[in-house]
């Protein structure tokens, strides 16, 4: 293609649309079900227990330290499948492009999608591309759906959580949200926050032999750890106690939070797993996780308690107890 930016005609169904598909999409994703550009992908399922998820991605900036909107979309969908106890298999991607989007940026995003999908062992089975007028979207939006096959042995549910269970996290918290904010505010340095955008499916598959002791999993994306834990406890007859001193944070993320007044319990991760498991299997799970790069900083952060029903309690850095609430509204730097 000779154009260096996306034109409305790229979505018009004519020659430019065709060029976009044959030059950019098929070379990257055309080896599987997409090859002949069918209206619907034909998939062969080994299992009858499937998991199906969908998500939208509207991040700004489109490229950020540690990733871009493309690998973020793959990881986000893969992780939603993984935390439901499934092996991710197929993805569907919808791209909404704004007229004027730089073609080289689009190529970088597509390359990232290709790499991330390969790394996660998923196939982009179907997709769609639309172009909207300048001003009708913010550069590039991606919607992504995914299908996975349930892994044997996992039986996950909030109703399986019992007092005495342990709360584990697979890695540092808040790196994605901190990286986005740092990019917007011009924060640099050798510890400048880097997004943790990455898949967690290896963390799940790695502990499948211990699945009987695993009660529930979530990835703490928007709203952070505080939101995930509150979703688990609200309306339940147990509480959760976490300890500030056990929470893993990257140094630059922690420093940015001090500087900008962020509560990292409210900040998104995109490659982290929160798990509730039986006390007996907690150490074994942590040991497995720590052998995988994405689980090196895995940590037990708290316990499920019979008292404080419905609430999440934090033991602060100096040993005081307080309630952890969900964030309200958008995440903004605090100054006053």
């Amino acid at each position, binding site marked *: 293609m000779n154009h260096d930016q996306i034109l409305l005609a790229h979505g018009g169904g004519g020659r430019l649309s065709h060029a976009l598909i044959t030059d950019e999409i098929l070379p990257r994703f055309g080896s599987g079900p997409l090859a002949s550009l069918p209206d619907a992908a034909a998939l062969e399922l080994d299992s009858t227990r499937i998991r199906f998820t969908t998500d939208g991605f509207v991040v700004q900036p489109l490229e950020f330290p540690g990733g871009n909107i493309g690998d973020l979309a793959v990881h986000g969908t893969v992780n939603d499948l993984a935390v439901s106890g499934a092996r991710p298999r197929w993805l569907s991607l919808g791209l909404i492009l704004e007229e004027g989007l730089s073609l080289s940026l689009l190529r970088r995003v597509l390359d990232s999608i290709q790499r991330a999908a390969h790394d996660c062992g998923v196939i982009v089975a179907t997709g769609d591309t639309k172009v909207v007028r300048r001003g009708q979207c913010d550069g590039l939006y991606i919607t992504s759906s995914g299908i996975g096959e349930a892994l044997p042995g996992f039986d996950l549910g909030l109703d399986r959580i019992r007092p005495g269970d342990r709360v584990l996290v697979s890695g540092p918290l808040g790196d994605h949200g901190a990286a986005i904010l740092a990019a917007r*505010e011009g924060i640099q340095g050798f510890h400048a926050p880097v997004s943790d955008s990455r898949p967690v499916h290896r963390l799940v598959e790695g502990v499948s032999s211990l699945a009987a002791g695993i009660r529930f999993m979530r990835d703490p994306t928007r709203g952070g750890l505080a939101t995930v834990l509150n979703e688990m406890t609200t309306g339940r007859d147990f509480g959760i106690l976490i300890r500030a*001193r056990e929470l893993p944070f990257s140094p630059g993320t*922690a*420093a940015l939070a*001090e500087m*900008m*007044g962020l*509560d990292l319990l409210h900040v998104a991760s995109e490659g982290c797993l929160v798990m509730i498991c039986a006390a007996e299997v907690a150490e074994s799970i942590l040991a497995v996780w720590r052998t995988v790069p994405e689980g090196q900083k895995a940590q037990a952060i708290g316990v499920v308690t019979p*008292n*404080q029903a419905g609430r999440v*309690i*934090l033991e*602060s*850095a*100096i*040993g*005081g*107890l*307080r*309630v952890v*609430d969900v964030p*309200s*509204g*958008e995440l*903004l*730097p*605090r*100054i*006053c």
Partner: protein
Amino acid sequence: MNYIDGFRNQDAAARYRVTLAQLGQEWADQGGRACFMEVCGSHTMAIARFAIRDFLPPSVTLVSGPGCPVCVTDPGYIDAAIELAMQGKIIVTFGDMMRVPGSRSTLAKSRAAGGWIESCYSPVTALELARAHPDREIVFLAIGFETTMAPVLAMLDTARRAAIPNLTLLTAFKLVPPVLAALIADPELKIDGFLCPAHVSAVIGAHAYRPFADTHGVACVVAGFEPLDILHGVEGLLRQKIAGHATVDNQYSRVVRPEGNRIAQRLVDHYLMPADVSWRGLGVIPASGLVLRPEFARFDAESRHGLTVQPGRLNPHCLCGEVLKGKIRPVHCSLFGVACHPEHPLGPCMVSSEGSCGAEYRFASGGVTR
């Protein structure tokens, strides 16, 4: 983190729990109860975040004062900012202002309605936008106490020297000593001591609190925002009560000098002059704010656009004023947690995470048992 982590030592905090319990008992044995006010919103925030109340003996109460600039911003100021946004000005504001209720709307809602409103970490963002959009006027929402005035005026000084024509301030600068004086003069108020702000004091100096201790006998401790600073500060206030004397104890001497930051003070004097300003919930307090001097009127959004900030309308059941004065705790307001919560704040104290109500709602320690 250098000069941060060391001030969060759990074992030292545990020692303060013991010391404060002993002092609290000693004070209770003398028949005393002590009510201290943390003046500053950043103290309120740190007290909530680190669960400091969990360390206090029953005879000591901490109440939150009027030191959150978002909380004390009059609804009429928000109305004026919204009007400027709807006229097509680019509004630049510290993030917490986005959800502060004006008389009818909020900045967040006027952004949804098409207003160009940017939230920022530093006022420098306003300068950058003014350079990037020479055809538009940038209005910076210049709220804050002594600490924040200095950076805003430093930015304005740069803009003036660079002859940037399209940048103005909508000012709502407020001063800490006059509001403390007004609180002390209120006969209903029973405050035994002030935990004085850390970084306001860095600018105005520890000497600024002398009249409160010397003339009014109110104990004053200037304390940093780290949890051990706060626990040490409460110990200092309690010791002053037990000893029966009031003084200004500058415990934040690693930052605060007796005379404060002279450069910042000179900058403030150069650009600003005292004015009677309205505090949300407290009303107009004489000479409790600062406005741009007439010779800098071209930087003043109000005089440039013939706008006058009118006192706005507040929900009549909102008791933020009583909360700000330390007369009641947030839970004693009939709206708290019912009609007024962080997703739908009626009063300003619920909007900011630093506001008394917001902090109490988010970090409520009530009923947490070991």
